[in-house]
């Protein structure tokens, strides 16, 4: 197996609460790996331990063969991170921010190409405060790509976005995947996981309770004789909304 990330028996305790309780999983190069779960399941804490942001109580994280606890500085050079609530300096333009972030890795970034990647070239001279929610998240992904990371971490990138902005972001993530980038994404939207992820781990109360490709999980469920109680509707309100406001990638 060509694993780019190996997490074994990771634990984190806050007082009486075991926020992360023996989490293990591997991420293969080139795949989109989803961590699914309700709020408070321990997704973000898990991610932050992998990203060197939070001390690890016990367990081990190997990123591209490097132990995160032993060589955090080297790991930081390899990863791209979009934090759940990260924001950027107010008074720098998008292009200035990206080249500054590039400098932090000792790189001169092709700023406009990077903005193209997330479809923000026309906002190049704007400030982050002038962006909409979806644009902010897309910019945040661009900032996470400045060092051409081995692996990209996206923590709930679509939370709080409207359906159009969410679909727009999915498009961006799919394109990044098509370029061969490994992506780890957390979400609490099932449809998002189904749409984007090659494999998902479902987390609850600090534990991973399932880990397989989405279709595989659905197949397993059906094999147990599961049947939905009501007939599936052919369309839902979200489809109506999208139909009325325009399915295409309208600028959000």
């Amino acid at each position, binding site marked *: 197996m060509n694993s780019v990330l190996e997490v074994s028996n990771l634990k984190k305790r806050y007082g009486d609460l075991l926020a992360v309780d023996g989490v293990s999983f591997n991420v293969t190069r080139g795949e989109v790996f989803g961590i699914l779960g309700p709020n408070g399941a321990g997704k973000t804490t898990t991610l932050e331990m992998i990203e060197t942001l939070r001390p690890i109580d016990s367990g081990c994280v190997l990123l591209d063969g490097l132990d995160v606890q032993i060589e955090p500085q080297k790991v930081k050079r390899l990863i791209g991170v979009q*934090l759940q609530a990260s924001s950027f300096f107010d008074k720098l333009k998008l292009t200035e921010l990206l080249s500054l972030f590039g*400098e932090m*890795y000792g790189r001169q970034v092709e700023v406009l190409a990077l903005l193209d990647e997330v479809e923000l070239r026309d906002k190049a001279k704007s400030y982050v405060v002038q962006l909409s929610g979806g644009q902010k998240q897309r910019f945040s992904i661009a900032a996470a790509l400045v060092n051409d990371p081995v692996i990209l971490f996206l923590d709930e990138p679509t939370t709080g976005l409207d359906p159009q902005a969410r679909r727009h972001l999915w498009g961006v993530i799919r394109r990044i995947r098509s370029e061969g980038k490994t992506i780890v994404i957390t979400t609490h939207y099932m449809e998002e996981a189904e749409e984007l992820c090659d494999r998902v781990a479902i987390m609850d109360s600090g534990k991973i309770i399932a880990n397989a490709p989405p279709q595989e999980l659905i197949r397993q469920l059906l094999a147990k004789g599961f049947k939905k109680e009501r007939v599936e509707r052919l369309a839902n309100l979200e489809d109506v909304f999208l139909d009325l406001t325009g399915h295409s990638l309208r600028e959000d």
Partner: protein
Amino acid sequence: MRLKAKLMAASFKMFIRQREAIIWTILLPLFMVFLFSFVTFDGIGHVSVGIVNHSQDTTLVGLLRPIQALKISKGQEEQELALLKKGDRALVLVIPASFQPTGQDSLTLYLNAEKPQETQTGKLILQRALDELVFRQNHLPRHAIRTELVNSRSLTYIDFLLPGILAMSIMQSGVFGVAFGFVVLKKRGILRRLLVTPIKTSDFIIAQVSTRLLVLMTQVLILIGVGVLFFHLHFIGSLFNMIIVGLLGGTVFLSIGFALSGISKSEDQVAPLANLITLPMLMLSGVFFDRSNLPGFAHVITDFFPLTYLANGLRSIAIEGATLTDVFPQLLGLAVWSVITLFIAIKAFRWE
């Protein structure tokens, strides 16, 4: 090195684009000077002289009394010398018991080493009064000299105020600028985002500090320039010395700002703390008014305020032309404060 330069350039750009900050650091102090330029305070710029008269003669004192530039108090030798040491007198003149207007007795004049400009002026005035006395007794033709010397540089309130305002704005932009700036960066997760990049903490802090010190220097130069051009500031000191003292003061107040941002979680917590620290200094460090009017007990604490050192240092340089050696006590005071506050800042600083 390249990263440091880029970080500095970026933080400078951010500062320039922050209009509120520019108003706060440059225009507000200027506006205060402008407002105060309409105010005249008697007694400021006067030389305070203590006179101890052991003789029966009153003509000398009578001659000195009407001179407006002098603020004369009479008293016992011990008291007056104590007041001189405290800084309440620029000079103390002791008239010996044997003194007569026609005599040859020597008078003793104690000079306050902290106030070279005032003592110099005072000495000239006293000398002239004595000459006058001799001329009167001997009815000799008088040479019209020296009067110009005495009046050559009459200090106004602006001369007193502007260096004080300079010290004040260094304190305000250091403490408030840094404390608020960093708490916002911290609270909004901007620092946290930097933490996942390989950037070194020291690089980031150095960039921030040097940008702000650069702004402080610009502030010093602009205020002095405007003072000289528009407010008849009698600036006779060296700009270099002003900047040295200003930078040392800036270091103290930036460190206080960093320490405050370290221990506070939000802007709401920073504001009262910052005010708690700056307000007493603003009132009692001699920014607006001469500290010699403060009661004795107040001196015990306020003498050691960093803003007192900064304001006195800048003022001596600006209007008395003091050298760095002359302001050594102030430099030492500020140096001790920078060590203390830097230590606290490093201990208290937090990324998240």
